[in-house]
């Protein structure tokens, strides 16, 4: 048994393959004991990764770019979500539908410097709107605090992750999607490890990847399986919500856990907006398809 | 000060007059007992069934061995400590909280440590309603009387024990109550200062016909000042005997000591306390 300590940046449905693999005992079969530790956000999780407190970070894949710049080369063992995971949500009464309508508005992001921040700035800039001067970007934290901010009118719109979006849309007629990033290819979530770790633990890396890839295959084959696992992950969700989440979650998981070049291309673009000291990465650099191959 | 006067129940008496039995008493203590919890969980009787009447304008001294309950008696009269049994009436009203027009000088000096001598005195003037404009003059007058002119701006920690006691006395005089409760006010003073202030006290008392309960260990002081001296014994504190002091008024605090009656009274009281203590 090899023990792998994994840190999660946030609890979300992209973890579905991990939980499935756990549930089905694939990790055990592969000789891996997986321990999951929760962190508040990607920052601390990545710090823990670099300091060696954890072996693996289940978090936004864009950290590979930053880690490279900080001379801590990392790689994505397996992609868990190949689409951007956020959507810009607002109350149903919010009239706007594209970037021009966001001018002069207050928009909530999870935290400064995060994926939501970068995405918003990137797309606003692309649409010719200055994120500094023409909108007000406010960090409120994700999930419930963001909903509270939208609900109480503190922000006009806010970026929320897929699960939250699904939950909000459950309340018919209360909220609407203003701008949806969820179709954009983006390496949004994955299992990140330092390259040095892979070098030292090639067998464990391969075993882990194999187990997750197997779970993904199972999920794709059996839609009910996703619902069963999600029900254990979100015991407070209603069956209909579970079903909705299951459908998107499975669809978003890349077959074979493969990182696509498109998703890395978008990732490079978005991440680089926020920080000009960074250098883009290539798929080859950050993903080793051999690990997931049979 | 005026308002305090108004609150008094009876008209001031002629100065120095011997207490008239007909005037309503300033203080009436009826069957009072006081108990305190003891460290071992029991109850100690500290004052037992004391009856006492203080006539309007009377100067009463209490003497007695250490720990017999003199200070406790003053606290009971002042309303700061509730009685356990019996009742106390001050100026016609039963005491449940500190009654108006009562000034209490504690055994321990209780000057506010963060305030200067004159600020400490000033507080009493504020509380008796002296207008701000009149305060500095009154303070200066009192400081002069007490020999503390040069220490007006000193804090209590920077003056001597006797000076602290004089400052506390100054506060009491500044308050100018109808009823003075004084717990060993001259205890830390040298004989000379004591004499000066004793004279002063007699002068103030005879001018305004205030009532005084004066606790002391100095029997000559008690006899020299008082209309009546009560000897307490205890614990539990009881009144053992009472001496009417019929020495002529106005008295001089020093000269009166030369009278043969004075010596005689002192000897009798001394013997009274002595017997008790010696026996114990």
């Amino acid at each position, binding site marked *: 048994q090899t023990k792998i300590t994994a*840190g999660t940046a*946030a*609890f*979300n449905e992209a973890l579905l393959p991990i939980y499935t693999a756990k549930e089905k005992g694939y990790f055990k079969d592969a000789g891996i004991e997986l*321990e*999951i*530790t*929760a*962190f*508040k956000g990607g*920052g*601390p*999780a990545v*710090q*823990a990764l670099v*300091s060696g*407190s*954890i072996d693996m970070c289940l978090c936004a894949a864009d950290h590979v770019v930053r880690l490279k710049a900080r001379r801590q080369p990392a790689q994505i063992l397996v992609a868990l979500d190949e689409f951007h995971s956020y959507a810009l949500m607002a109350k149903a009464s919010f009239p706007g539908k594209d970037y021009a309508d966001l001018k002069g508005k207050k928009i909530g992001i999870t935290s400064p410097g995060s994926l939501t921040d970068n995405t918003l700035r990137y797309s606003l800039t692309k649409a010719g709107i200055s994120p500094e001067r023409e909108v007000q970007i406010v960090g409120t934290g994700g*999930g*419930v605090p963001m909903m*509270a901010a939208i609900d109480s009118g503190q922000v006009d719109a806010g970026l929320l992750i897929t*699960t*939250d979006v699904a*939950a909000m849309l459950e309340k018919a007629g209360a909220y609407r999607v203003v701008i949806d990033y969820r179709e954009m290819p983006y390496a949004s979530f994955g299992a990140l490890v330092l390259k040095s770790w892979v070098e030292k633990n090639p067998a464990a890396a391969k075993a882990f990847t194999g187990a997750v890839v197997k779970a993904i295959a199972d999920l794709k084959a059996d839609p009910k399986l996703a619902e069963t696992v999600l029900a254990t*992950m*979100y*015991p*407070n*969700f209603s069956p209909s919500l579970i079903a909705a989440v299951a459908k998107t979650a499975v669809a978003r998981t890349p077959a074979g856990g493969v990182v696509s070049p498109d998703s890395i291309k978008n990732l490079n673009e978005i991440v680089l907006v926020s920080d000009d000291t960074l250098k883009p990465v290539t798929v080859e650099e950050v993903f080793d398809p051999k690990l997931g191959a049979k | 000060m005026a308002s305090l006067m108004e609150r008094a129940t009876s008209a001031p008496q002629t100065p120095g007059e011997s207490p008239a039995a007909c005037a309503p008493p300033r203080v009436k203590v009826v069957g009072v007992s006081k*108990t*305190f*919890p003891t460290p071992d*969980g029991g*109850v100690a009787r500290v004052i037992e069934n004391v009856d006492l009447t203080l006539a309007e304008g009377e100067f009463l001294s209490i003497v007695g061995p250490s720990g017999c309950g003199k200070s406790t008696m003053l606290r009971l009269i002042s309303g*700061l*400590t*509730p009685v*356990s049994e019996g009742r106390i009436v001050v100026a016609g009203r039963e005491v449940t909280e500190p009654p108006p027009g009562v000034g209490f000088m504690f055994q321990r000096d209780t000057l506010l440590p963060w305030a200067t001598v004159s600020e400490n005195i000033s507080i009493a003037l504020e509380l008796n309603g002296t207008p701000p404009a009149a305060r500095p003059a009154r303070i200066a007058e009192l400081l002069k009387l007490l020999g503390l002119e040069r220490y007006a701006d000193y804090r209590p920690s920077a003056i001597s024990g006797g000076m602290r006691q004089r400052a506390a006395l100054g506060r009491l005089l500044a308050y100018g109550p109808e009823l003075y409760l004084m717990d060993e006010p001259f205890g830390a003073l040298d004989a000379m200062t004591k004499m000066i202030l004793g004279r002063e006290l007699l002068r103030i008392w005879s001018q305004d016909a205030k009532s005084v309960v004066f606790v002391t260990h100095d029997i000559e002081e008690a006899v020299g000042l008082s209309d009546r001296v009560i000897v307490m014994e205890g614990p539990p504190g009881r009144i053992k005997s009472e001496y009417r002091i019929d020495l002529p008024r106005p008295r001089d605090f020093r000269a009166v000591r030369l009278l043969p009656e004075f010596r005689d009274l002192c000897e009798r009281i001394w013997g009274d306390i002595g017997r008790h203590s010696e026996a114990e």
Partner: protein
Amino acid sequence: MSAETDVRPARPFLSPAKVRLWFDRLLVFVLSVGAWYVVANTILDPFWISSPELVAERLWRITLNGDLWWHSSATVWQALLGLALGLVVGFGFGLLLARYPRLAEALDPYIMGLYSLPRIALAPLFILWFGIGLLSKVMMAFSFVVFIFLLNTMQGLKEVDRDHIDLMRSMRASPAFIARRVQLPAMLPWLFAAARISVGLALIGSVLGELLGANRGLGWYVEHASGRLDTTGVFAGLTALMIIAVLMNQAVNLLERWLTPAK
């Protein structure tokens, strides 16, 4: 305001005063839970504040399946260790600084500066230095508590009656003797004030530590519930935290009553 040190008989286990006290407290409890219930059922969506019956039910459930014990024991243990460490180091360092005023004066700004750093921002350093195990959480709690004890020790020492110290010095008592027999007892109110303040901060620190990286603890439970939009879980965790805080504070009160003689 009543300044009466009057008859206080040996109190029986259930004196009328105690019965009344507990009645009062129950009343406050019923009133606040009632208010919560009403608000949750009228003005505010239970999504935001859950509701008392849901929380009670959840607490009951996690008590039965052992989750509550599993999580709260971790949090309490971290808080207690942080408290103990903070007490010892803060008090000891306070004594030391009081002994060397020059050092104290020189360090003062730096101590205050360190104290005021937001612990969350230091998360990376905590992880780096203390890992993500028990130690980092204990240190998080410690990082609050130690300053409270340090500050109160220094202030409390200043307030000790000088004459008492002088008296001991006149009998050539050693500084250690004076510290033990005069300063420590004279400072007890300061130390208990620090303890009361610290109990809350130690719990907050312990929870904060769990956000740095954990897989158990009430902080983890709350955060996890919050990530799942499970408001009831959040409030169940918070309620458990409140109960723990109350119990720990009660322990401080008992200790105080036991150590401080009725003056």
